[in-house]
């Protein structure tokens, strides 16, 4: 293992800003794994730390294959993490909207550029990502349909779902999109949590990456058996919204299977304790996303369900591969 500084920026008032990478093996740039990019992504940081720990063990046992190099970058934004801010400390910009970056531009454009120069050229790219709204997810691989996406490869992670998304103009600055455009097979892996640690779901994605590395011949060690993933379109997920604001009281967990009409959550009057709204499943499905803040606004998507039943069966070859 070699610890390398991928990008460094000097600061007047703080220690230098450093993006640090851990390299395992040598030779062909096989896979790069990127962890937290926003200051609240502690679970993503934790996942990387566990992956580094595992790769160290494998390397000591000689299980990283000849001519393969794997890099893990646990954190792209230590400055925000260390002060509990989600975005860049001064201008509140999001590094994950700045790719491919610009070396003469604003601070976060320079960071994105410095990082992206390292990221270009890997055969596979993995980002432990988080969603822009806070909540819990069923672990899944998310991919943008850029024309370069490879669903077959995404399935190798063996997480329960592969979710396909059509990029919107807003996405043109995100890492996953740019990585694909620059011909790295890029995958965003979502674990259950973001701002708190969940060891179980973290270890699932670490297993999943280990397994993937084995299947592509980068290491000689197989992760735990996974799932045969379902491929779903994000646009086919069923959103369940609140109609009232108040205290959000969820009654089901992510990954739970629910039937149409089942009670999923309640919105409670914050002063009088009475139920303002009962939130029920609008179809038979699996809970893919669950809102996690204790207070909720009206018209907020608090659940996303993967419809099951007629949707589950699809003619072969319908996946866009």
């Amino acid at each position, binding site marked *: 293992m070699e610890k390398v500084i991928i990008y460094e*920026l000097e600061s007047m*008032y703080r220690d230098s800003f450093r993006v640090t990478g851990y390299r395992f093996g040598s030779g062909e740039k096989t896979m790069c794994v990127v962890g937290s990019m926003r200051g609240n992504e502690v679970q993503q940081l934790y996942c990387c730390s566990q992956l580094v720990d595992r790769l160290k063990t494998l390397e000591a046992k000689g299980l990283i294959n000849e001519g393969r190099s794997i890099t893990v970058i646990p954190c792209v934004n230590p400055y925000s993490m260390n002060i509990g801010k989600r975005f860049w400390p*001064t201008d509140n910009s999001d590094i994950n909207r700045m790719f491919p970056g610009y070396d003469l531009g604003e601070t976060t454009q320079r960071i994105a550029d410095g990082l992206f120069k390292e990221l270009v050229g890997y055969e596979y790219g993995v980002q432990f990502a988080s969603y822009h709204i806070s909540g819990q997810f069923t672990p899944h691989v998310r991919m943008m349909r850029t024309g370069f996406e490879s669903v077959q490869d995404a399935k190798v992670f063996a997480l329960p779902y592969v979710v396909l998304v059509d990029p919107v*103009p807003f996405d043109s600055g995100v890492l996953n999109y740019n990585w694909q455009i620059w011909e790295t097979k890029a995958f965003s892996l979502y674990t259950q949590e973001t701002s708190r640690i969940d060891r179980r779901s973290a270890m699932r994605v670490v297993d999943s990456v280990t397994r993937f590395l084995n299947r592509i011949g980068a290491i000689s060690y197989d992760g735990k058996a996974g799932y045969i993933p379902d491929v779903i379109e994000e646009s086919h997920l069923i959103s369940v919204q609140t109609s009232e604001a108040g205290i959000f009281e969820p009654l089901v967990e992510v990954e739970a299977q629910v039937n149409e009409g089942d009670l999923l959550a309640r919105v409670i009057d914050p*002063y009088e304790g009475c139920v303002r709204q009962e939130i029920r499943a609008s179809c038979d499905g699996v809970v893919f996303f669950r809102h996690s803040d204790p207070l909720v*606004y009206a*018209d907020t998507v608090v659940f996303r369900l993967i419809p099951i039943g007629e949707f589950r069966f699809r003619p072969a070859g319908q996946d866009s591969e």
Partner: protein
Amino acid sequence: MIEKVVSIQLPVDEELRVVKNRIAPEGLPDDAKRICIVTGTHGDELEGQLVCFELARFLKDNMQHLKGIVDIYPALNPLGIDSITRGIPGFDLDMNRTFPGRKDGSMSEYVAAEIFNDIAGADVCIDIHASNIFLREIPQIRINELTAEELVPLARYMNVDFVWVHSAATVLESTLAYSLNAVGTKTLVAEMGVGMRLTIEYGNQLSKGIISLMAHLGMWDGPIPYVREPIVSVDGKVEYINAAKGGIFVPRIEHWRDVRRGEHLGDIVSPLTGDVLVKIESPCDGLVFTLREYPVVDEGSLIARILKV
């Protein structure tokens, strides 16, 4: 008359309300023109508050000359203004990336949709911004090159110093201005001053510009204020200066003045060591129309924009 544009119940005993002031004389014909003055999308930009005040005050005192409908929306993002938050508090979202919104969307999309629908159909909309807390801007109108032909002639009435025609590539599609222009409501984006402050001179300048535009539109038959002729320029004529190092930026020139190539614009200094870390010199002859106001800079922070002449 104060009218509610949209309201929504917040979780704990509070209603979020976006309101407007409709100023119109009695007995207007059905085809009377309507102009919307909107501001406060970014909660840390306050220069537009003064324009709204000046305009409302002036029109109330001079109703006999008003020949159309003036809708004033001082606070599209009231929670942001009240909490010194640029975006929509609670959503970590830039409101000016949510238009035209969706009626069946989330709270922020719903609010955006109701605001958008309320404005759409007006003859002209002026969306007033105040840069951010980092940069001071000369009063200017920013226009996407795709709409330049229609909008530049209107911008000339606005009493601004500068009209900046942006290339289409840098245009953001989910802004209020883009969305309104897309449905035929001619929208001018004004940028001036600096975040979290009022620049009284600029507020008065733009207010006069709005009256002069209203006169051009046939909505005002009172005395027409004298307006200055703006410099109209395109992207290629704008030079950016970014900080080469982090530190404290000390300007050595005034905002909005002529500079010569090589002229000393400012320094990035170290308060700890007493060293000048970077001496910033102008890369060209031109006019400094954007100048850094917030002293702390990281490497890459924008220091100035110069219009090449």
